[in-house]
Structure formats: structure tokens, C-alpha cells
């Protein structure tokens, strides 16, 4: 197992270095002088210019700048936002729980609806239910989620008045941050009303972000189940006279879920993309909205730092997914 992990790490590190190089190059690729950009509209005297250049380290040769950049990044220093003058890392992690909460809920939504739907569709292969699920998942897979969000707002917030249109929680509630996840923090505080407020705020964004992962999970579960149901071990289990339900859950589904681990892990990218669009629409104070805002405001240290952190997360999640896959897949065990 250790060897497997080391091998993975050895491919992850060059990728990570490449990503840092990309993030570093980013600010240098922007047309115009970054020093003037930092000094702002007012410009500045020559002295101020030299001072800012020194402060940004731009007077050093490029390779020294890059080494400085990754050296600082390794200690968690990604520079300061030009807009707020606060450290990028601090800004990132103050917003991260909001996106994490949304992303986790979206994954749970996709898994807890997608897997049962896929299993039932596979059991009733070629039935009306099967066709409906497959049709819906095709539509879901092609959904422009920014439009889907607006349609849901019109239906549930405007016409039915069931859900709020923006924010994470009603402004009345003051929740002390423990985990940063409002669903957890409100429960820790014992404030049930605030919990339901947070839940209602979460509903629509969760559905919006979860739609594409849901479609993918349902489709993959179905095809994976269909494949497994024809396997010998399922026939053996049935021949032993096991109850059909036990055959399905312990023999078929357990094996059908193995390829799904990879599929679910790969949805992380789709969730970040979803977060960028959804957070902007629902004014959700997370990473996605922050990145869009920084791009609009040309806050380059933030874009640079944000890209580096998000890419590192994607790389580590992919590694973790591969590791889990290797752990649970009996075929991988034998080949090691």
C-alpha cells in the first residue's frame, strides 16, 4: 500500500509544480504593468513605483521570483489581495466552509437519489421507470445550470415563496462559527429555527449544483448494476437460495459501487464549476463567487492563489479517490 501511495505522490508532485508555474505565469501574462495595476488608477511617483516593485519582488530575476513564490506558498503565504489587503490564504479559508457545505450537500443529494434510482432502473430494465430515469438523466447531464437555477427560483422562491433567493441563513441569526458549516453549527448551538433557516437557504443551490452529478451517478449506477447482475457470483448467490434483496444489496450493489467511487470523485470539478455559477446567482458567500468577483476586479494575487489552492485540492482528491479505489477493489488487491 505504501508503495502505491508513493508512486501516486511521484506523479502528483510534478503536476503540482506545473500548476504552481501556471499560477505564477498567470500574473506575468496579463497585459500591462502589474506594478501600475497595484498602484491603482492614481498611479504614483517614481519612488512609489520602485517601492511597490520591491514590495512585490518584481525587481528580482524571474527564477528567483518563482522560487520565492513556491517557497512562500509552501508556508501558506500566497500574498495579499489587492482589494482588501488581507492575506489570500485567510480570505480563501474564511469562504471555504460555505462552498464545502454546499458541495457536500450536492454530493449527498446526487448519491442518495442517484444510486437508488440507478439500482431500480437496472432491476426494471426496459421498463417505463427505466426509460424515465434515463431520459431525465440525459436532460440533467445537458442542463445549463445557470438557467436551471433561475427556473427553480421562479418556481420555488417567486411563485411558491418556499425558499429564500440569496444568502446562507436569515440575517437574524448570529451563529458562532465552530466548523463553519451552518447546518452543524446551528445544531451545536441547539438553535433549531436557525438550522431550518440554513437548510432552506441550502435547498435550491444544492439541487442546482447536484443536478449534473446526480445525472452522472444515476446513469453510471444503472450501467454498472446491469453489468454486475449478469455475473456468475450473482447467479451463485441466487442459486444458494438467498433472498433477492440480499443478493441485490450484498452481492450486486457492493460490486457495482466500486467503479462509482471514481465517478463520484471526478464530480469534484463539476462541483467547483457549479459553485462558480450557483454562488454568483444565489449570492452565496463562498469560493466561487469570490473567484468571479476577483476576476472582475482584476485582483491577480487572489486569482493566482485561488487557482493554486483549488488545483491542489483537485489533485489530492484524485489521489485519495485512486487510493480508496485500490483499497476496496479486490481485483487490485490480487494484482499488487
Amino acid at each position, binding site marked *: 500500500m505504501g508503495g502505491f501511495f508513493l508512486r501516486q505522490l511521484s506523479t502528483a508532485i510534478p*503536476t503540482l509544480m*506545473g500548476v504552481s508555474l501556471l499560477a505564477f505565469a498567470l500574473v506575468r501574462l*496579463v497585459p500591462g504593468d502589474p506594478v501600475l495595476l497595484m498602484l491603482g488608477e492614481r498611479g504614483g511617483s517614481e519612488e512609489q513605483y520602485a517601492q511597490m516593485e520591491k514590495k512585490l519582488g518584481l525587481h528580482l530575476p524571474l527564477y528567483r521570483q518563482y522560487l520565492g513564490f513556491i517557497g512562500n506558498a509552501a508556508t501558506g503565504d500566497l500574498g495579499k489581495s489587492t482589494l482588501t489587503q488581507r492575506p489570500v490564504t485567510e480570505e480563501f479559508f474564511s469562504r471555504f466552509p460555505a462552498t464545502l457545505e454546499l458541495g457536500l450537500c450536492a454530493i449527498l443529494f446526487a448519491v442518495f437519489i442517484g444510486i437508488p434510482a440507478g439500482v431500480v432502473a437496472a432491476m426494471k430494465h426496459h421498463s417505463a421507470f427505466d426509460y424515465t430515469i434515463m431520459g431525465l438523466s440525459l436532460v440533467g447531464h445537458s442542463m445549463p445550470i*445557470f438557467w436551471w437555477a433561475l*427556473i427553480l427560483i421562479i418556481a420555488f422562491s417567486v411563485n411558491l415563496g418556499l425558499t429564500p433567493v440569496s444568502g446562507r441563513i436569515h440575517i437574524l441569526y448570529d451563529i458562532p462559527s465552530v466548523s463553519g458549516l451552518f447546518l452543524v453549527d446551528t445544531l451545536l448551538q441547539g438553535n433549531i429555527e436557525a438550522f431550518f433557516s440554513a437548510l432552506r437557504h441550502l435547498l435550491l443551490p444544492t439541487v442546482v449544483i447536484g443536478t449534473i452529478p446526480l445525472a452522472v451517478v444515476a446513469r453510471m449506477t444503472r450501467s454498472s448494476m446491469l453489468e454486475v447482475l449478469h455475473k456468475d457470483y450473482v447467479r451463485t448467490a441466487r442459486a444458494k437460495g438467498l433472498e433477492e434483496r440480499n443478493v441485490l444489496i450484498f452481492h450486486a450493489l457492493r460490486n457495482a459501487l466500486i467503479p462509482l467511487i471514481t465517478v463520484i470523485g471526478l464530480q*469534484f470539478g463539476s462541483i*467547483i464549476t457549479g459553485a462558480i455559477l450557483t454562488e454568483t446567482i444565489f449570492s452565496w458567500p463562498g469560493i466561487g463567487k469570490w473567484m468571479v468577483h476577483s476576476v472582475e476586479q482584476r485582483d491577480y494575487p487572489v486569482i493566482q492563489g485561488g487557482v493554486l489552492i483549488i488545483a491542489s485540492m483537485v*489533485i489530492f482528491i484524485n489521489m485519495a479517490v485512486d487510493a480508496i479505489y485500490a483499497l476496496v477493489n479486490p481485483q487490485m488487491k490480487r494484482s499488487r
Partner: protein
Amino acid sequence: MERDKAQEEIEHPFLEFWHSFKRGRGACIGLAVVMIFIFLSLFAPLLAPHDPTEIFEGQLRLPPAPFADGVARFPLGTDSVGRDLLSRLLYGARVSMGIGLLVVVFSATVGTFLGLVAGHFGKGIETIIMRLMDIIMALPSVLLAIVVVSILGPGLFNATLAVSFISIPAFTRLVRAGVLEEKKKQYVLASASFGAGPWRQMFSNILPNCMAPLIVQASLTFSNGILDAAALGFLGLGARPPTAEWGTMLASARMFMETSPWGTALPGLCILAVVLGFNLFGDGLRDALDPRLKR
């Protein structure tokens, strides 16, 4: 007699493909949708009742004609500044199909070339190219696109370039995998023994034999390109008003979606229909072209 029979049995590859393609119901629906949108975008100037940017004063946010306040002059109503919605949607089809086409042409050309080089030459070049692709793939697509747009500046063409850029790795990986498989085969070895150079091997011998997955990928890239470019337009980083682009139209109709929901509903439906059409078409292509799935 014998000969006729033999000829009947061996179909032209295209006919063989077509017979297996048209068996898929989804594939045919997809193809029909794709054809309709190609038709609409080609003939938009003839079909559109008005100029897409012409502003009709006092005709703001009219509902589609069948509704109570609708006017026959504007079959699908007008937008928030009084432009004919139908005309804008038709020209929007043009913009979106154009984006899709550009994205496919650009990313398939660059991606295929890199994949061929990586697969054929191997060693250091391969490592560098494939690592580069890993880096691009480590970033979520829309995030990478908005970063590229932040460098190039917002605009329709830059958004298209950004989306093309993020679509490259899929082609490179497919082509490289194909090349690695093909280059061991006898016809490539035979050709090499006749003195075929690397470029001839790559382009005339190997590439035509790994086309099938590329065609499928092109169809999926087309739909993703339209979707991502519309998302950029929606975020205000793609096409700029008054360009009739569906994502941008959605964004500007958003403020009025409570009072005039059709301005929001229709462009989104168009995006959904086109993307769904291309995805169905792509799935159909995969089923028909992939020999492993053939019955």
C-alpha cells in the same frame, strides 16, 4: 451471381455505420435536433422577422404572440429593451453554433497534433506534453476558462479561445492512446520498412485508424463548448451586449424574470436543446462506431 452476393454482404463502411447508427432512437432524435439548429443558424437572416439588434421603442418585454398582450409582429415577444426575441434567438443559434465549431476545430487540431507527437515520439516529449495536459485537467473547466478570460480580457472571441484551450487535453489523451495501440501493428511496421517518415506515419497511416473516438469526442466537445461559452456569457465574461448570445441574453433578462419569465426561459431552452441534441448525437456515434459495443 456469386460476386453479386459477396458485394451485397460487404457494405460500404459509411453505410454500415449508418445502419447501426439509425437503430438508436436517441441518436436519431439527436441528429434531427442538430440538423434543425444547423438549418436555423445557416438561414437566420432569412428566417428572422427583424434585425436582432433593432430596438422597437415602447415595445418592451412583450409576451409571445399567443398570450394576452402579445403582438403578431413579435412572435416570441420582445426583450427588456424592445428587441424581437425570435430574431435574437435565431441569431443566437448562429453565434452558439459558430462557437461550437470554432472550439472543436481549434481544440481538435491542437489536441490531435500534440497527441500524435506524444504517442509517436514518446520519451521526453511525451512526458512534457502529457504532464501539461494533467495540469490543464487539474483545474475545473469553467474556473480555468474565467482565468484565461481574465488574462485575455472579456469578449466573445476570447471566451471561445478559453473554452478551446480547456478542451485540448481530451483530444490529446485519446489520440495518444490510439497511437500507442496502432503503432505496434503490422501495417505501421510494414510502412516503416518502406521508409515512411514520422510525419507520414503519424498523419497518413496512424491517424485515420484512430478517428472513431475522435469523432465522438468532437461531438461532445461541441456541446460542452456551447455550454461553457454560454456560462461565460452569463457571468459577463463572454459575448457583450448587444450581441445576441444565449448566455448573455439570459443574464440581461434575469432582472425581469419575475414579470417576464419568457425572456429567461427561451434562451435557456435553446441552450438545453442544442446541448442535449449534440450529447444524444455523440452517444449514438459512440454506439455505432465503437467496435467493442457492436452486437
